[in-house]
């Protein structure tokens, strides 16, 4: 259990990350607002509490691997990295600009300074790469390397995907392979926000029931409120403890979370706020931050 003090700290950080997302998207004049805001709590939990990686260990061979598959939500990744101390906050304003490290879809060209393991963008490609990293952590495809005389670096691989991108067939190829190898070294966070560019996921290409689908594919499934940091951290701990199955953490999130006029509106999937909208959004986020603080006092 996180202490209530720590939980409050993390909630404040998540709120700051949301403000940084708005600021960077405003500067970029394009980019994806809804998914970025919706995943701020998961990113906070992952980069501050769950994954075994810090700015000091970012180049370590046994660092946990984090793979962002739906890389269009990279504003939340960049804002999290800035708050966590991997890059200067000022740099967030270079998002999507010529010469920036903060490309429109995150890439791995600035490793190890920026701990971004893969290039994302075209949907459905992250999970396969996460599987490769999880197999590499074993050193071979066998279940155990505990008996091996050679001590290999061990890490956990965390993959983040959207729900819309589960439309891609490549994911289902990957889901079968991870189950084949009983890849318990792999955990996938799915951003179940129910929207994609053209509309609601269940209208575009129905995904439900995701729990039943993943269980049928021999994965361990945990469902969480994607805005409850305690639940997210607990689920990650459970995932680490599960043996002989990879884990899906189905994160039920609200796209555009924290900004009233963006929440649950798929129109904000691929749009950035203008100056007026950003001002309203920032004011709202700051107020919400106050509410969260008061709740835990």
């Amino acid at each position: 259990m996180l202490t209530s003090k720590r939980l409050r700290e993390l909630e404040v950080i998540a709120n700051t990350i949301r403000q940084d997302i708005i600021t960077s998207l405003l500067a970029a004049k394009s980019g994806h607002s809804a998914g970025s805001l919706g995943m701020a709590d998961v990113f906070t939990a992952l980069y501050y509490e769950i994954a075994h990686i810090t700015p000091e260990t970012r180049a370590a061979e046994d660092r946990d691997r984090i793979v962002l598959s739906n890389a269009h939500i990279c504003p939340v990744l960049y804002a999290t990295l800035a708050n966590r101390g991997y890059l200067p906050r000022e740099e967030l304003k270079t998002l999507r600009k010529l010469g920036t490290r903060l490309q429109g879809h995150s890439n791995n060209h600035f490793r190890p300074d920026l701990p971004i393991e893969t290039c994302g963008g075209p949907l459905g490609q992250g999970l396969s790469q996460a599987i490769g990293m999880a197999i590499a952590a074993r050193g071979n495809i066998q279940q155990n390397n505990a008996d091996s005389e050679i001590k290999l670096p061990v890490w956990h691989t965390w993959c983040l995907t959207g729900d819309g991108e589960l439309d891609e067939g490549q994911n289902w190829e990957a889901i079968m392979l991870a189950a084949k190898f009983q890849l318990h070294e792999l955990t996938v966070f799915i951003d179940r926000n129910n929207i994609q560019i053209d509309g609601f996921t269940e209208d575009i290409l129905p995904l439900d029931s995701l729990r039943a689908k993943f269980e049928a594919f021999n994965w361990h499934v945990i469902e969480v409120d994607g805005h409850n940091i305690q639940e997210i951290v607990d689920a990650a701990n459970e995932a680490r403890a599960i043996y002989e199955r990879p884990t899906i953490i189905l994160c039920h999130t609200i796209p555009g979370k924290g900004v009233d006029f963006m929440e649950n509106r798929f129109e904000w999937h691929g749009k950035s706020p203008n100056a007026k909208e950003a001002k309203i959004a920032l004011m709202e986020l700051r107020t919400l931050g106050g509410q969260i603080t008061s709740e835990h006092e």
Partner: protein
Amino acid sequence: MLNSELYLNPQIFDTNAERLPTRDGYGKGLVELGDTNSNIFVLTGDLAESTRAHHFLKKYPERFVECGVAEQNMMGVAAGLSLAGKIPFVSSYAVFVPGRNWDQLRVSVCYSKSNVKVAGAHAGISVGPDGATHQALEDLAITRVLPNLIVIVPCDMEETRKCTHAVAEIVGPCYFRFERDKTPVITTIKTPFKIGKANICWEGTHVTIAACGPLLYEALVAARELDAEGINAEVLNCHTLKPFDHSTLESSVQKTGCCVSVEDHQITGGLGGAIAESLGAHTPVPLERIGMPDHFGESGQTEELLTKYGMKAKDIANAAKRAIKRKV
């Protein structure tokens, strides 16, 4: 005359000259690599035996990833393995890899500069009876266009074995293709093989014949036939399409003044394309292209198909004569 400095097979023109499948060179090379490097991983999509990757599977099952008939995922898994320090070889038919997973090759491998080695088996029309769907005649075009990717077409079993070793030594993505049928053994263990460096197999002054893959044999037979008619052809083994060896081609055509490209691939986008680009930029001379003339293949025996679509020695010799005629 065969270039003696290359230690080519001296019996190459004999009627009973040795013929071996190029894919055997891949299988052999993989096992040799596995013996010395524990980071080597091999992946396949239900084609272990066809690609000859099964030799590695028998010896190193713990480093063999059978992905099932799921090529998109396979390319991504390979990228993930490489980004975590392994050296994965992706083994499938060239029509599927990179045909089915070009986007994964582009983003997960090439853009990421992942150290993935992609082996396309059963390439070219020479795969024969399986017909058009299985004859990879476009793979070189779609790989050659990708930044960061090295593209190689070895000419025989021995060169495929050497190529398998050479790509493992390079850090970065590589694509190489080979064939199913037995093809003449042109090179020997002593023949030099350096990625990016074309070999002059037969020296001449009247026309340059630049070939890649097993059709290099047809090019050499053509050169010998032309020699008997008093035409001195120079035959290049352009095994590396990217990075392309402009300087060897340029020196050759400066001497000969015309060129013929030879490949088991569409005449656009592959070796013919690379040569046209190179000549256009550096040394414009007449170019004739031997290969598939913007057409799908069909079922048939290899020899029948090569004859029908004009990729035999006599077609190359005729193309050489046309190229010579076009010289100003």
